[in-house]
C-alpha cells in the first residue's frame, strides 16, 4: 500500500524543525529540490494506521510565490497530499493563521499544531476554540518534551480519513468572481486561479531561467496576465480583516516579551550591541581558524598513517601508488573539510536557533548593502577567511537565490587558510626585507582579498544579469530569543556534513584521483635522462644515505617534469610567461588545483628537495632555499621579488580549488555557476598578475 504523504507547513521561527525532529526521530533524509538550493527534508512518522512520509516544507509566511521556497510550498500543497500539518505559533497567532487560511482556500486536508505554548504561557489560546474557528483539528504540542505528539499523530490519521473541501472566509468582489469562474477550468480551482492572477507577471524581456519563474502552463499564464479591473490586494486585506475580527477575542492577554526586550536592550544597542557582535564574530572566526587546525592535522595524520601502512604492506608499485596517493589521499582531501564544516554549522545552528543570526543581518546590512550584498552574507564572507567550502554551504541562510549565488561568487576571493602556506613560502623565499615588511605584506594580502571580494560583488550585481538586485524588500524577522535545542543543532550539523560527503565529496574524490594520475603518469623518464637508479644503487652500496636521498628526489623531480601534469605545465608556459612564471611554477599551479597548499609540496618535488610538508616550517626550508637560489639557464635569478608578488596575486585571485567548484556546483545545481566562477577568477588573476609583473618590470623592479 502507498504510504500516506503528510506535509509540514509553517512560518519560519515557529518551532517547525523541532516538531519535525520530534515526529520523525532519526529517520530524516535531506536532499535538494531538483535544480535549486532549497532543502527537501523527509522522514517517517508513525501513525496509528501505519507509517507515513512527513515532508518538511520550507518555512514561509505565505503561499504567494515571491521566492523559490514559497513556490515549492504552493506546488506541494496543490499536489494532493493526504494531510497538511500547519504550524500555528501561539505567540504570533494571527500571522501564522494567515498561512492556514491560504491552505484551506486551496482545499488541502489541513490540521493545525499549536506550538510555543511554553512561551505564550497563560496567553495561549484554547485549542478547542481554535478548532471550532478553523473547522479543522488543532493540537497543542510541546515538541521539546514530546507532549501532545501522540494526540497529533491521531489527529493526522483523523484528517487523512475525513472529507475535505475548500474553506473560504471572504467573498471575492463581483469582478474577481467572474474572472475566477472563467479561469476555473484551466486553473483547477478558485484558489489556484487567484494564485495565478496574483503571481503571474509579464515576463521580463531577456529574463533568464535563473529568475524565480513559476512553473505553470502557458494556458494558465496567458489567462492570468490580464488583470484589468481586478484589485488583487483585496484578498489579502479581506483575510486580515477576518483574522483581526476573530483572533483578538481568543487571546486573553498579550504575550510577555520582556526576556527578548531585555536582551535586545544590550545586543541591539548602537554601541554595546556592535561590540557584542564583534566579540561573537571573533570567536566564530578564531574557532574556524585555530580550533579546527588540530582536528585537520589529526585527519591528515590519520590518512598519512593509513597510507604508510598500506605502502608497507603492499610494497612499491603502480597499484600501491594509486591506492595510497590517489585513493586514500583523495578521501583524506575530502575528510579534511569536515572539522571546519562541523564547527561552522555548530556555531551557525546555535546562532540561528537562538535568534541572533537574523540580528547579525540587521547589524551588518548597511555595510553589506553598499556592495549589493545581503546582510546575511556577512557570516559566509567571514567564514571564507577559513575556507570557502563551508562558507559556500553557509550561504543557505539567505532566502533568495540571487543573494546566495552572488555571495558564492565572491567568497572564494577571501584569503582562505589554504593560501597561507603559499604566501608564507613565497614571502620567505622571494621577498627581501625585515620581518616587519614581510608581516605587512601578509596583512596587505588579507586587505587586498577583502577589497577585491567586495568590489567583485559590487560589479557583478551591476553587470551580471541574473545577479542584478531585484526590487525585493529586505524585510527580515527578528525572532524572539530562544534556547537552542542541542539535538536540533547536532542534527542540522550532521545533515550538512553528510550532504557534503555524499554530494560534493564524490566530485572532490574523483578530481583528486584525476590530478594524482596527471602528475604520476607516464611513469617514465624522458630520453637522455641520467641513470638515476644506478646512481641511487651506487650511493646505497657506498652507504651514503644523503646522496641516495638526493638522487631519489632528483628522479622524482624528473618524473614529475615528464608527467602529463608536467607537460601541461610546459604547455602553459607561454600563457604564464607574461606573468613572470616559468614551467616549474606551471606544474605547481596544476598541482594546486587539488588544494592551494599542494602548490608547496608540488614545488618541493619539482625542485627535487624531497618531501615538503606545507604546515611545517622546518621542512619547507630546503625548498625556500631552492627557490631563492633558482637560476635561469643564462645564470640570472629565476624568481625576483616581483615574480613573488605576481605569484601571490595570482593565488589570491585564481580559483585554484576544485573543492570550491564542486561545492558551488552542488549548491547551484549545475555547472553554469562553477564554470562562471572559475572563468572570471582565472581571467581576473591573469590580468592583475600581468599588470603587476609588466608594470613592475617597466618600473625596473
Amino acid at each position, binding site marked *: 500500500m502507498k504510504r500516506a504523504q503528510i506535509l509540514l507547513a509553517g512560518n519560519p521561527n515557529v518551532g517547525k524543525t523541532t516538531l519535525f525532529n520530534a515526529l520523525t526521530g532519526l529517520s530524516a533524509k535531506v536532499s535538494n529540490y531538483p535544480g535549486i538550493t532549497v532543502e527537501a527534508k523527509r522522514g517517517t512518522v508513525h501513525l496509528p494506521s501505519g507509517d507515513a512520509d512527513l515532508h518538511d516544507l520550507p518555512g514561509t*509566511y*505565505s503561499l*504567494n510565490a*515571491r521566492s523559490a521556497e514559497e513556490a515549492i510550498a504552493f506546488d506541494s500543497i496543490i499536489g494532493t497530499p493526504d494531510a497538511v500539518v500547519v504550524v500555528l505559533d501561539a*505567540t*504570533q*497567532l*494571527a*500571522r501564522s493563521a*494567515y498561512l492556514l487560511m491560504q491552505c484551506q482556500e486551496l482545499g488541502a486536508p489541513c490540521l493545525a499544531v499549536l506550538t510555543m505554548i511554553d512561551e505564550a504561557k497563560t496567553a495561549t489560546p484554547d485549542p478547542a476554540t481554535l478548532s471550532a474557528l478553523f473547522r479543522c483539528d488543532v493540537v497543542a504540542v510541546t515538541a521539546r518534551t514530546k507532549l501532545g505528539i501522540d494526540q497529533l499523530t491521531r489527529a493526522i490519521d483523523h484528517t487523512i480519513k475525513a472529507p475535505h473541501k475548500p474553506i473560504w472566509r471572504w467573498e471575492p468582489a463581483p469582478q474577481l468572481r467572474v474572472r475566477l469562474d472563467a479561469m476555473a477550468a484551466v486553473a483547477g480551482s478558485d484558489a489556484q486561479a487567484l494564485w495565478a492572477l*496574483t503571481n503571474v*507577471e509579464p515576463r521580463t524581456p531577456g529574463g533568464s531561467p535563473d529568475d524565480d519563474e513559476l512553473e505553470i502552463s502557458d494556458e494558465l499564464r496567458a489567462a492570468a496576465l490580464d488583470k484589468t479591473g481586478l484589485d*488583487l*490586494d483585496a484578498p*489579502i*486585506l479581506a483575510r*486580515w*480583516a477576518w*483574522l*483581526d475580527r476573530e483572533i483578538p477575542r481568543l487571546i486573553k492577554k*498579550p*504575550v510577555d516579551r520582556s526576556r527578548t526586550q531585555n536582551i*535586545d536592550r544590550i545586543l*541591539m*544597542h*548602537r*554601541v554595546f*550591541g*556592535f561590540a557584542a557582535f564583534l566579540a561573537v564574530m571573533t570567536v566564530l572566526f578564531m574557532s574556524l581558524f585555530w580550533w579546527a587546525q588540530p582536528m585537520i592535522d589529526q585527519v591528515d595524520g590519520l590518512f598519512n598513517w593509513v597510507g604508510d601502512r598500506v605502502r608497507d604492506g603492499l610494497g612499491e608499485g603502480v597499484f600501491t601508488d594509486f591506492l595510497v596517493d590517489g585513493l586514500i589521499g583523495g578521501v583524506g582531501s575530502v575528510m579534511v573539510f569536515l572539522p571546519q564544516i562541523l564547527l561552522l554549522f555548530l556555531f551557525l545552528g546555535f546562532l540561528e536557533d537562538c535568534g541572533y543570526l*537574523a540580528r547579525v*543581518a*540587521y*547589524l551588518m*546590512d*548597511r*555595510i553589506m*548593502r553598499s556592495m549589493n550584498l545581503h*546582510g546575511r552574507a556577512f557570516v559566509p564572507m567571514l567564514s571564507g577567511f577559513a575556507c570557502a567550502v563551508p562558507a559556500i554551504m553557509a550561504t543557505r541562510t539567505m532566502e533568495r537565490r540571487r543573494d546566495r549565488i552572488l555571495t558564492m561568487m565572491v567568497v572564494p576571493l577571501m584569503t582562505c587558510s589554504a593560501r597561507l602556506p603559499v604566501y608564507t613560502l613565497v614571502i620567505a623565499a622571494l621577498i627581501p626585507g625585515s620581518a616587519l615588511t614581510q608581516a605587512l605584506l601578509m596583512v596587505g594580502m588579507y586587505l587586498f582579498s577583502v577589497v577585491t571580494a567586495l568590489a567583485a560583488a559590487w560589479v557583478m550585481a551591476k553587470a551580471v544579469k541574473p545577479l542584478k538586485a531585484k*526590487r*525585493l*524588500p*529586505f*524585510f*527580515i*524577522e*527578528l*525572532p524572539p530569543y530562544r534556547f537552542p535545542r542541542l539535538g536540533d543543532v547536532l542534527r542540522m550539523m550532521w545533515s550538512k556534513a553528510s550532504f557534503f560527503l555524499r554530494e560534493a565529496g564524490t566530485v572532490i574524490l574523483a578530481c583528486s584521483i584525476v590530478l594524482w594520475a596527471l602528475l604520476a603518469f607516464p611513469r617514465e623518464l624522458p630520453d637522455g635522462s641520467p641513470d638515476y637508479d644506478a646512481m641511487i644503487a651506487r650511493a646505497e652500496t657506498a652507504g651514503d644515505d644523503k646522496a641516495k636521498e638526493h638522487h631519489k628526489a632528483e628522479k622524482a623531480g624528473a618524473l614529475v617534469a615528464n608527467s602529463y601534469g608536467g607537460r601541461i605545465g610546459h604547455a602553459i608556459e607561454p600563457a604564464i610567461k607574461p606573468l613572470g612564471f616559468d614551467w616549474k611554477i606551471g606544474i605547481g599551479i596544476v598541482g594546486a588545483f587539488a588544494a592551494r597548499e599542494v602548490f608547496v609540496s608540488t614545488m618541493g618535488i619539482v625542485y627535487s628537495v624531497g618531501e615538503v610538508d606545507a604546515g611545517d616550517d622546518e621542512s619547507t626550508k630546503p625548498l625556500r632555499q631552492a627557490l631563492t637560489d633558482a637560476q635561469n639557464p643564462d645564470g640570472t635569478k629565476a624568481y625576483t621579488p616581483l615574480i613573488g608578488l605576481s605569484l601571490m596575486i595570482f593565488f589570491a585571485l585564481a580559483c585554484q580549488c576544485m573543492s570550491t567548484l564542486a561545492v558551488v556546483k552542488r549548491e547551484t545545481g549545475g555547472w553554469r555557476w562553477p564554470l562562471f566562477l572559475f572563468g572570471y577568477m582565472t581571467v581576473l588573476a591573469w590580468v592583475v598578475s600581468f599588470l603587476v609583473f609588466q608594470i613592475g618590470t617597466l618600473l625596473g623592479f
Partner: protein
Amino acid sequence: MPTLADIPLGRAVVVRDVTGGNAFRRRLLELGLVPGTSVKIVTVAPFGDPLRIAIRDGEWSIRRVEAAQIEVDAPSTSEVKAP
C-alpha cells in the same frame, strides 16, 4: 502624507497605506502590515539603517527606503491603537 521613515524612534503610529511594486506591497500586507495596524520604530542599526520595527506581535528589520513606502498617520493627529 508622512511615511514610517519620518517618524521618530519609539512613537507608535497607524499604517494608512503601503505603496510600491506589487511584490513588495503584497508581501508587507501579507505579513499583517495592513492599513489600520499600529507600528513603531524600536531601534536604528549602528550605521543609521536598517530600522527595527514592531508590528503586531513581531519585530522586523526594514530598510529606510522601504519604510518610506509605508504611509502612516501624522503622529500629532493619530489615534494610537494599543498593540
